[in-house]
């Protein structure tokens, strides 16, 4: 490979920038973070992904210093952060509500943190101008926050949090308030800015697409614990649990009993149906309960019986979701299972062969799905 892949988490000599060591956070009886240990490396774009209430925001607020862990330690650049207040940390945060000061202009909002450092006027002005250029806000410097659009406000918030050149930038659902198109553009902008400034970003989001787009690694969280940490591709292609598979993207889950056969595993899933053949590196015991997970785009749909497919089942089209570029077919099997199959719409709609109530074949190869224990 000509280009070195950025993956400090695989290098045992690399020192992590952030370390959570057995961190627990309780609010009264509620356990927000449950004995969590995690390393995050410099220059990473680390995404915390999970449903609301999973503890991702608490993790971020502990990094910023607004919450203290009930147990365990958090290190940033090797330093224990327990006694360090938010205003003494080389960490800045971009708030979900942006939290722009309504009484200050865009310029003064960005300069706010710099002025607190006691820098001289020229240095502050130069840095603010630089930030305005970076976020393409130079024209709006004199406006007040209520005089600019949502997207511009989001960029002011970003510029303000980057102005002090923090070691670590925390982004709390930064794009939540933007509409879809603007959000996608801004995601790429964020990645560019992260690359230019070389800052470590930790982003909290409940939008899996956003996490997949921007992050170098994604941590999927649930009930105060990190379920899986991996690159977006690994999370998508090799989820470690049904929870992760289901949370990221669309998935078909078929539960059954394992019947290992060398490196192949057959899943007995329904009476009178051929076993599903899958490939796995994990060892399963015969008769163990397992879950076969397969993404809809890896399921082929056809009117004729496919000849050389490892797995094929007959079914009937129940529903078609037409999304323009792709269509998702909901195919009902004789057993009552509904399997989603996705195809790219390479032909015009009028020439589509398959329609409602059609008997069809769905098929997939023996490496298309993953076998999960839980």
């Amino acid at each position, binding site marked *: 490979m000509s280009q070195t892949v950025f993956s400090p988490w695989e290098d045992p000599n690399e020192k992590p920038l952030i370390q959570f060591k057995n961190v627990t956070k309780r609010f009264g009886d509620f356990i927000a973070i449950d004995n969590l240990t995690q390393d995050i490396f410099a220059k990473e774009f680390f995404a915390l992904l999970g449903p609301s209430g999973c503890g991702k925001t608490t993790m971020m607020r502990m990094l910023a210093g607004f919450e203290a862990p009930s147990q365990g330690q958090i290190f940033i650049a090797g330093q224990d952060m327990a006694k360090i*207040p938010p*205003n003494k940390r080389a960490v800045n945060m971009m708030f979900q509500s942006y*939290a722009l*000061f309504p*009484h200050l202009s865009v310029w003064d909002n960005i300069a706010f943190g710099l002025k607190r*450092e006691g820098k001289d006027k020229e240095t502050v002005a130069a840095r603010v101008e630089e930030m305005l250029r970076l976020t393409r806000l130079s024209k709006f410097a004199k406006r007040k926050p209520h005089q600019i659009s949502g997207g511009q406000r989001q960029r002011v918030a970003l510029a303000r949090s980057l102005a*002090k050149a923090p070691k670590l930038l925390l982004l709390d659902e930064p794009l939540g308030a933007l509409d879809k198109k603007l959000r996608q553009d801004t995601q790429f902008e964020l990645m560019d800015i992260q690359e230019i400034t070389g800052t470590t970003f930790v982003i909290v989001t409940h939008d899996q697409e956003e996490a997949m787009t921007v992050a170098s690694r994604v941590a999927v969280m649930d009930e105060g614990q990190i379920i899986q940490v991996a690159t977006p591709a690994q999370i998508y292609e090799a989820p470690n649990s049904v929870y992760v598979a289901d949370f990221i993207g669309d998935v078909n889950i078929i539960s059954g009993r394992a019947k290992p056969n060398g490196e192949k595993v057959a899943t007995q899933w329904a009476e009178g149906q051929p076993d599903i053949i899958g490939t796995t590196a994990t060892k399963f015991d015969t008769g163990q309960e397992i879950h076969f997970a397969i993404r809809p785009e890896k399921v082929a749909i056809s009117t004729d019986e496919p000849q050389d497919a490892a797995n094929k089942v007959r079914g009937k089209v129940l529903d078609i979701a037409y999304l323009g570029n792709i269509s998702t077919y909901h195919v009902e099997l004789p057993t009552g299972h509904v399997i989603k199959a996705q195809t790219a719409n390479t032909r015009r709609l009028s020439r589509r062969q398959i329609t409602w109530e059609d008997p069809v074949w769905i098929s997939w190869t023996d490496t298309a799905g993953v076998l999960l224990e839980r």
Partner: protein
Amino acid sequence: MRRFILIAVPYLWLVALFLIPFVIVLKISLSDVALARPPYMPQLDFAAGWEGFQSFFAALDFENFWFLTTDDLYWKAYLSSLQISLTSTVMTLLVGYPIAYAMARAAPEWRPTLLMLVILPFWTSFLIRVYAWMGILSNEGLLNQFLLWLGVINEPLTILNTNTAVYIGIVYTYLPFMVLPIYSALERMDDSLLEAAEDLGCSRLSAFWLVTIPLSKNGIIAGCFLVFIPVIGEFVIPSLLGGSGTLMIGKVLWEEFFSNRDWPVASAVAVILLLILVIPIILFQRNEQKQREAEG
């Protein structure tokens, strides 16, 4: 047409209850005192027709306003009113701001109760509450008895009938007018702004100065005007709690009117007072408008 009627209602109200009384007071201020009922002249005699009209206007003059400048009692009373009003506004702000701040920071389920407690005194007559302060502040009053019992003082403090009592009375009475606008400004403030300030390097105290105070500025200004404007013309508090040394224009006005029965001079005092008050009222309106524009 219906729109016109709708607008006409408040205007009629203003004309009937403000403009007409004001014209009457203005007219009296231009008249001369007389031993009659009512105790001033000229009176407009409709029966005399056009000539009666002419002689009526010919008899009006600015003599009373001129008189106000000859006796230094009046401008001293105006100045002293302004000074007392200014001082008590500052004192009300110093007492009211922490109260409003504590209310806005209290748990949301407590806020309605606290708000109720601030408004509750209005349920009792203002006059009765001022009388109650006489009972508290007098030489044999509750405060002195308490301090004597504590042993802090050996003989009773003279508080009643001094300016101190007037300040206490004003701060107590006008506190809600200060607390409510500041509370409403602080309550609307987003807590994440303070976190953002801290995140950007502010200590708690500097975050308060740089964020909380500027964002409650409009509430502070509104509260100050709501206290300052009525206190200038305050009459009940200085006459019940103040002594002979307390000089306020409201008291002077009352004495001119009821003791001296000099309605024309009393009216002139009132007209000047109104002119003085127009300035802060205009400033207040402008502040309100600016705030609306900023929010719009």
